Every structure is written in structure tokens, then in C-alpha cells.
């Protein structure tokens, strides 16, 4: 049975596109047939993050407007032959597509793929409504910051209003060292506030920038911690909900002392 998952956040720049690309790669590496759709019409990025920008001929708007067939617009990944990208149009705007058209498009994609991932644009307007239109469920991406969490809360309400099931959460740009010294909201703080199930914690890491420079998502790299964080999100989504979270085990000197003194609960692989 295929499923469409929208990756959204409200606030811009928190990691929706990075998450879409890496989750796409991770799900494909598990053997699923996956398409990642860039719904950020006018500001496409997913092609660049996946290193496929030179192969674009047609885009999502061409398909919707009947200028090409769906198959012509789908771009196969360089490394995985079960991973495809449906790019956004760069020179149009979000209002040239309607939620009904998106719903139809997603329905067509679901005939071919196990997972349709939709990279939602920032904001709560037309681009958001289009992105959730065909979705079966939503993943909310946030960072451990006040503004991002506030917007995530707003988006959770809008996802519920769109009659999707309870969304799940990915906490991106997590820094254990800052958490250890009390300068970053921890997993428990964020979950207490947003009160939705967690499916991933992704560390803040320079590997993301290197991989964006190269156009090779980190999830390909078996040595990468960030890549591993994304691969675990994919496993949690596909029937292994108990996979432990990485980047959670405090490693610093003080946190070891703290744990030893019983001041902070040992948060191991749970």
C-alpha cells in the first residue's frame, strides 16, 4: 500500500528540503519505490540538494498543465534506480496549482510508488494547502528554537484542521553540547510542548553543508552520523518504531558527572 507523506514546518529554513532528500534516499535504500516531490513552486531546491539539477526538462507544473506526461517529468536518481524526483517549476508561482490538481497528481504517483514525499514550502498559504492536499500524513520539522517551535505548533493545528492524522516530529539541528549546558531545549522539553510522537532527532552538523555542496545527500554515507539519523527516521516510519534515537546520549564530561550524581536521568538507547 502506498503512502504520501508531506514534510512541513511553517517556519522557513529549518530543514524540510534536507529532510525530504535524506528521507527519500533512506527509504529507497530500504528497498521501497520512492518519489520526492518538490512542492516549493518558484523556489525549487530539492533538485540541487539531490544533485539532479542538470537533468530537469519538465516539472510538476508541466505535468499538471498537460504539457508532458508524468513519466517524462520524473528524474531518476543517479545512484538508486528506485528513487525519483518530481521537480517544481522555478519560474511560476504557487498559485498556478490548485489543491485538487495536487491531489490528482499524488494519486497518479501512488500508483507507481510506495512512498510519495512532498517537500512543502515555508508558510501557511497556498503552497502549504497544495502540499497537504494529497497527503496521508505529515512530518513536522522543527529546530530547538522558540520561533521554529511556535510555528510548528501552528502547523500541527493546521494539519489537524486538514483532517490528516496526528503528525509526527523531526527535531533538526540538535546540539547535544548545548543541551548539556542548559542552552538548548531538549527532546523532552520539545515533546512536552508540542505533544506529538517523535520520529527523528538530527544533529546539527557541517556534513549537511558539504553534502549540499556536492549534491549528494548524507543518507548515502554509511559513516555519517547525520546520515544514520535519517536512516533511522526511515526505519521508524516503516515498521521499526523502537529504533533508538542517536545524538541523545550525552557525551560531555559534565553530563557524565550529572548522570553519575543522578541529576539528570540516563537517556540511553530507548
Amino acid at each position, binding site marked *: 500500500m502506498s503512502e504520501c507523506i508531506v514534510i512541513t514546518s511553517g517556519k522557513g529554513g529549518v530543514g524540510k528540503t534536507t529532510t525530504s532528500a535524506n528521507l527519500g534516499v533512506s527509504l529507497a535504500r530500504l528497498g521501497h519505490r520512492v518519489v520526492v516531490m518538490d512542492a516549493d513552486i518558484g523556489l525549487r531546491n530539492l533538485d540541487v540538494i539531490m544533485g539532479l539539477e542538470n537533468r530537469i526538462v519538465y516539472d510538476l507544473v508541466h505535468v499538471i498543465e498537460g504539457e508532458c506526461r508524468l513519466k517524462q517529468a520524473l528524474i531518476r536518481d543517479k545512484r538508486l534506480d528506485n528513487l525519483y524526483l518530481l521537480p517544481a517549476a522555478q519560474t511560476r508561482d504557487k498559485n498556478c496549482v490548485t489543491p485538487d490538481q495536487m491531489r490528482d497528481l499524488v494519486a497518479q504517483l501512488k500508483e507507481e510508488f510506495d512512498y510519495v514525499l512532498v517537500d512543502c514550502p515555508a508558510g501557511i498559504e497556498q503552497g502549504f494547502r497544495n502540499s497537504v492536499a494529497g497527503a496521508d500524513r505529515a512530518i513536522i520539522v522543527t529546530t530547538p*528554537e*522558540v520561533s521554529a*517551535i*511556535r510555528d510548528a*505548533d*501552528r502547523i500541527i493545528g493546521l494539519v489537524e484542521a486538514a483532517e490528516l492524522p496526528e503528525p509526527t516530529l523531526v527535531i533538526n539541528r540538535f546540539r547535544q553540547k548545548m*543541551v*548539556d*549546558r*542548559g*542552552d*538548548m*531545549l*531538549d527532546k523532552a*522539553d520539545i515533546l*512536552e*510542548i508540542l*505533544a506529538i510522537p517523535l520520529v527523528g532527532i538530527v544533529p546539527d552538523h557541517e556534513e549537511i553543508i558539504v553534502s549540499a555542496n556536492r549534491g549528494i545527500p548524507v543518507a548515502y554515507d554509511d559513516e555519517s552520523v547525520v546520515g544514520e539519523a535519517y536512516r533511522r527516521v526511515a526505519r521508524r516510519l516503516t515498521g521499526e518504531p523502537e529504533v533508538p534515537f542517536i545524538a541523545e546520549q550525552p557525551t560531555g564530561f*559534565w553530563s557524565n*558527572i*550529572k548522570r553519575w550524581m543522578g*541529576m539528570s536521568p540516563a537517556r540511553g538507547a530507548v
Partner: protein
Amino acid sequence: MHQIIRRIFGTQGSKNDAKSRLKLLLVHDAVDLTPAEMEAMKAEVIEVMSKYIALDRGEVEFKLERNEGEIALVSNVPVRRVTARAG
């Protein structure tokens, strides 16, 4: 001593500010009530209550709280003494 331990272990880091600000922000977002409207409501409620009980106006607390998604208006009204009521 306790203070020093807290400082060393960073339990007073900026994350506590983040958390308390967020909680306040989210309840205000959810009920769509500005701080000024809250103040106005508080003043009116105090006005009504003071018809029946003697209270320290300055001490009255009024806040929106959120727990696991549920929002409640929590108020703490220190009463000095009950005024003599007719009947």
C-alpha cells in the same frame, strides 16, 4: 552552595527562558487573546470578585497555562477576609 552547583551544571541555562516564553506564547496564540485583552479581562473579573470578597488587587494572578495540549486559565486570588454579606 546550591546556587554554585546549579551554575556549574548549567541548569539555569537559557533553555529555561526559551521554555517559559514558548509556553506563554503558545497559549496566547491558541486563545488568540493579546496581553492587553488579558489585562482588561483580569481587571473586570477583579471588579466583580471584589463585590463579594476583599482581595489584594496587586496580588491577583491570572495566567493561561498549557499542559499536554490542554489550555486552562489559572487564577490565584489571595483573599484578605470575607466582607459581611446581607442575609
